């Protein structure tokens, strides 16, 4: 309808003209002036009815009145900007937080992995009832693959590193060795070139590689003709056969750039007890996880008997791949989601009480409109419209908060950890999150619309016009307000306790005994592979040279090399035997580290007995070992371990090592784990191609890093140097520290917001109650009540509410603590100091919130209060 609508004003003018013309005509017929005036109007009938009919002519009445409701509501909301801003902001806070967290939950736990039919993909590894789960050995993998009926295909992969020769020097790169059908099993096809051919998988097969999308883009400028070119990895030429698609990622491989077939095995890898491969299998149709698990366990036991593998009771382990990839973050995410939902709940309750208080202050307006003929439905509709507007405003603002929060939170995850969490890429507003947001918005809308509507329906118009509110309904609703505050305070207590527990866990984690001083330590990773370091003894000179050159740098106090830094993981373990004791096939798994003579000194480990290694402990001398206290206590209780010998398979060769020293426990494994027994061998007696330099500095270790990199490069430009950082940064960036930090800060933020909202809610209820009881207080004071007793009365009211909130909250907090037990470290769910601190904080805040209204109540002038009536 594009024609110009005639407006109501024009129509009114026409009617005015009609009346005037009629009046004129009547006068000309001889009717008196007054009579003509009267009769013209009388004849016409109801002018307003005519105008209304004109007005309604082209309209759908309910739509029209809806539009007017909305317009009126917007005017009302703008007339009261404080209320509107508070309601929208509070809702946006709760909604933004829960939506952002939900986006992570969705990406990690709900979105399927980016493979074909990912639910059928299993992680298949060795396991035993006593030692948990660990990787496969290659011979076991081959036998499992051959013997099983449960898997359509069973593949193996193993992380590795190469030195990539580039025109600008050697660069260490991450790579993954995979069995031939690995990509077919995942259901991933190269976007360029081809997948591995059947023959390329065999031992002695050609050196070929697939590139990750990132490697193709950054190292080969995304050129299409990359297929068929060769790259130099560890002085071997690899032919590029294809490029993996952009969407491909495999969390267990970090960001491996080169994917090569397993076409050669080291001496160790040929052994049945050298565990270095991860299995991935696709279940046959109709086969369940349990069936597959049972079959694999049978095979594992059969092989155990066949090859007489001692002391393990091997079971094998079949677990859904998604469980392996997101299992670690699930409890954290669910805890965060729980916290966010609680915050959302508080926000909604807070806005509802705001809406209620507002509807209370509009009682007169409602009553007057009712008395003037507005139907109850019409009035209710007005409130419903306002509720919907607040809910939608809050939701839109909440969605904006959420999208900012998602980006901020995603950015807080460090790069190398994000590589193991490919799902972070999927954190965004998608169908799931939109549905979640719509759900919250709908719930909020129903809540904000229904409560004032019910409130309105429960009170009669006459009650509203008279000022006194002593009816039962009034009491009910006042109680509702108090109950809501108790709820808010209880939820605040839960969140505060949760935040307290997580904060204490995080603190405990960072202050866990490391067994060395992490301050003033600089570290960097060195890779020495390729032709120049082939052959026995070639690397020993390199180790000595690095230690010597670095130690003589200004500002360096001491330096050493290790195969693996402490506080990383309990990986690289060794199965040992004590020489001279009967071998009953016990399972003696200990952490194994290869270190240079200067390492333990540079680390600041405490030598309890014996000595550290010296440069004399090299390949031409008998094997020696240093053990930690845990190993000494476990295997040599009440004995002197010095001079005892331990035996193992070192590099596939049976070896014996004499213990020459015992050190205080250095935490080799993760911060939140137990200390494992550990053995240290001289790096000069068991070569390592890849090792880490550790430097104790006098000043800020970060400042020394560039110099360290240069020094190592000067020794040999073909060395791969990477990952230069400080020990403190390394520990801060470990998964345990990050997850705990994330959880503690976020839940802390939720708790702080919840406390603020809860206290504001308490203040609101007390202030409102005081304002309604002004007359009563006046009467009391007129009858002789002291100011102090009025003060006490108001504070008492607040104290009852706060106490109820604290008691209910503590019960809830206990339950919540139990649920997040898995995230706690060094504290129990029932932690009296945390509970006490939370009670004190909440009590003090409640006192503060009620102090102002109490003072106002006590300063009521009885004369004024009574005269106001």
């Amino acid at each position: 309808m594009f024609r110009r609508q005639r407006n109501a004003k024009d129509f009114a003018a026409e009617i005015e003209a009609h009346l005037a013309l009629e009046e004129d005509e009547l006068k000309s017929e001889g009717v008196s002036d007054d009579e003509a005036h009267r009769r013209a109007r009388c004849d016409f009938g109801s002018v307003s009815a005519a105008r209304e009919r004109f007005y309604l002519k082209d309209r759908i009445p309910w739509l029209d009145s809806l539009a007017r409701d909305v317009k009126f509501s917007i005017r009302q909301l703008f007339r009261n900007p404080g209320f509107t801003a508070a309601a929208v902001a509070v809702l946006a806070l709760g909604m933004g937080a829960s939506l952002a967290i939900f986006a992570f939950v969705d990406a990690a736990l709900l979105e399927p992995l980016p493979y074909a039919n990912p639910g059928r993909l299993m992680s298949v590894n060795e396991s035993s009832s006593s030692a948990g789960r660990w990787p496969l050995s290659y011979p076991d993998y081959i036998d499992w693959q051959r013997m099983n009926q449960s898997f359509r295909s069973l593949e193996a992969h193993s992380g590795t590193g190469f030195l990539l020769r580039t025109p600008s020097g050697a660069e260490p790169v991450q790579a993954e060795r995979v069995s031939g059908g690995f990509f077919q099993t995942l259901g991933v096809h190269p976007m360029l070139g081809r997948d591995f051919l059947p023959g390329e998988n065999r031992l002695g097969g050609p050196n070929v590689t697939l590139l990750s999308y990132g490697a193709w883009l950054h190292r080969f400028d995304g050129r299409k003709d990359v297929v068929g070119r060769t790259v130099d990895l560890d002085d071997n030429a690899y032919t590029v056969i294809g490029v993996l698609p952009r969407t491909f990622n495999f969390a267990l491989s970090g960001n491996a750039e080169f994917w090569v077939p397993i076409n050669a095995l080291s001496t160790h890898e040929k052994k049945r007890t050298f565990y270095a491969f991860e299995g991935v299998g696709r279940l046959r149709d109709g086969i369940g996880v349990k069936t597959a698990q049972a079959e694999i366990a049978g095979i594992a036991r059969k092989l155990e008997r066949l090859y007489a593998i001692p002391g393990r009771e091997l079971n094998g382990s079949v677990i859904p791949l998604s469980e392996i990839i997101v299992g670690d973050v699930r409890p954290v995410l669910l805890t965060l989601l729980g916290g966010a939902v609680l915050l959302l709940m508080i926000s909604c309750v807070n806005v509802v009480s705001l809406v209620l208080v507002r509807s209370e202050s509009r009682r007169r307006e409602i009553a007057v409109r009712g008395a003037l003929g507005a139907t109850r439905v019409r009035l209710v509709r007005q409130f419903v419209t306002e509720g919907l507007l607040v809910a939608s405003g809050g939701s839109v603002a909440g969605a904006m908060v959420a999208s900012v929060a998602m980006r901020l939170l995603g950015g807080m995850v460090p790069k190398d950890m994000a590589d193991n969490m490919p799902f972070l890429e999927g954190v965004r507003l998608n169908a799931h999150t939109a549905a979640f947001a719509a759900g919250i918005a709908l719930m909020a809308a129903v809540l904000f619309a229904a409560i004032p509507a019910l409130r309105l329906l429960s009170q009669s118009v006459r009650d509203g016009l008279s000022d006194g509110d002593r009816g039962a309904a009034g009491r009910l609703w006042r109680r509702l307000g108090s109950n809501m505050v108790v709820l808010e305070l209880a939820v605040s207590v839960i969140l505060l306790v949760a935040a307290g527990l997580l904060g204490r866990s995080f603190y405990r984690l960072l202050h866990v005994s490391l067994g060395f001083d992490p301050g003033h330590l600089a570290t960097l990773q060195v890779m020495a592979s390729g032709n120049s370091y082939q052959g026995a003894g070639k690397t020993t000179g390199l180790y000595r040279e690095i230690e010597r050159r670095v130690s003589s740098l200004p500002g360096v106090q001491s330096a050493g090399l290790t195969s693996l830094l402490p506080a990383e993981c309990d990986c690289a373990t060794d199965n040992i035997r004590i020489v001279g004791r009967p071998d009953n096939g016990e399972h003696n798994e200990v952490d194994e580290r290869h270190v240079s003579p200067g390492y333990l000194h540079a680390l600041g480990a405490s030598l309890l007995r014996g000595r550290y290694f010296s440069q004399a402990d090299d390949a031409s001398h008998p094997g020696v070992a240093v053990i930690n206290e845990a190993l000494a206590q476990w295997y040599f209780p009440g004995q002197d371990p010095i001079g005892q010998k331990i035996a193992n398979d070192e590099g596939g060769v049976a070896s014996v090592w004499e213990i020459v020293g015992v050190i205080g426990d250095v935490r080799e494994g993760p911060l939140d784990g137990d200390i494992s027994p550990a053995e240290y061998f001289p790096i000069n007696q068991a070569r390592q191609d890849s090792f880490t330099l550790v430097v104790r500095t006098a000043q800020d270790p970060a400042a020394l890093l560039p110099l360290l990199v240069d020094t190592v490069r000067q020794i040999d430009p073909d060395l791969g140097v990477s990952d230069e950082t400080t020990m403190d940064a390394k520990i801060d960036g470990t998964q345990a520290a990050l997850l705990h930090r994330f959880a503690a800060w976020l839940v802390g933020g939720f708790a702080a917001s919840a406390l603020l909202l809860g206290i504001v809610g308490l203040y609101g209820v007390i202030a409102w109650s005081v304002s309604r009881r002004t007359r009563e207080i006046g009467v009391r004071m007129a009858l002789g009540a002291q100011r102090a007793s009025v003060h006490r009365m108001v504070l008492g009211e607040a104290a009852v509410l706060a106490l109820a909130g604290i008691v209910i909250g503590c019960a809830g907090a206990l339950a919540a603590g139990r649920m997040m037990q898995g995230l706690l470290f060094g504290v129990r769910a029932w932690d009296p100091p945390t509970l006490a601190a939370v009670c004190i904080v909440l009590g003090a805040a409640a006192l503060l919130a009620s102090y102002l209204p109490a003072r106002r109540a006590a300063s009521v002038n009885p004369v004024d209060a009574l005269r106001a009536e």
Partner: protein
Amino acid sequence: MTTQKNSDDRIALLQGTLDLLILKTLVLGPRHGQGIARQIRRQSEEVFFVDHGSLYLALQRLEDRKWIAAKWGVSENNRKARFYSLTARGRGQLTEKTGEWQRLSRAMGLILGGEEA
């Protein structure tokens, strides 16, 4: 709606006839709303009374259908008024509707008259 006269001998307009009466009234030239109302009453010998609300609604409806056109002007006694005039389409409609009405009233007459005879 009451008038000063006893309204027993007056007839409320049949649905749809008001449009036809308005069109017919405008054949002689442009008129304003009050003039149309007077004219209908006078020509029907005061039998039809016009509900003014309905009249103005009908005028608006006809204007929306472009059967009549409206424009503000000045009456003989110098008052501002909105004048309506018949459009070509309106003229066509008048012919058509008049034919329809005549057929209808003849048929009604036949039935009612036949019964009387």
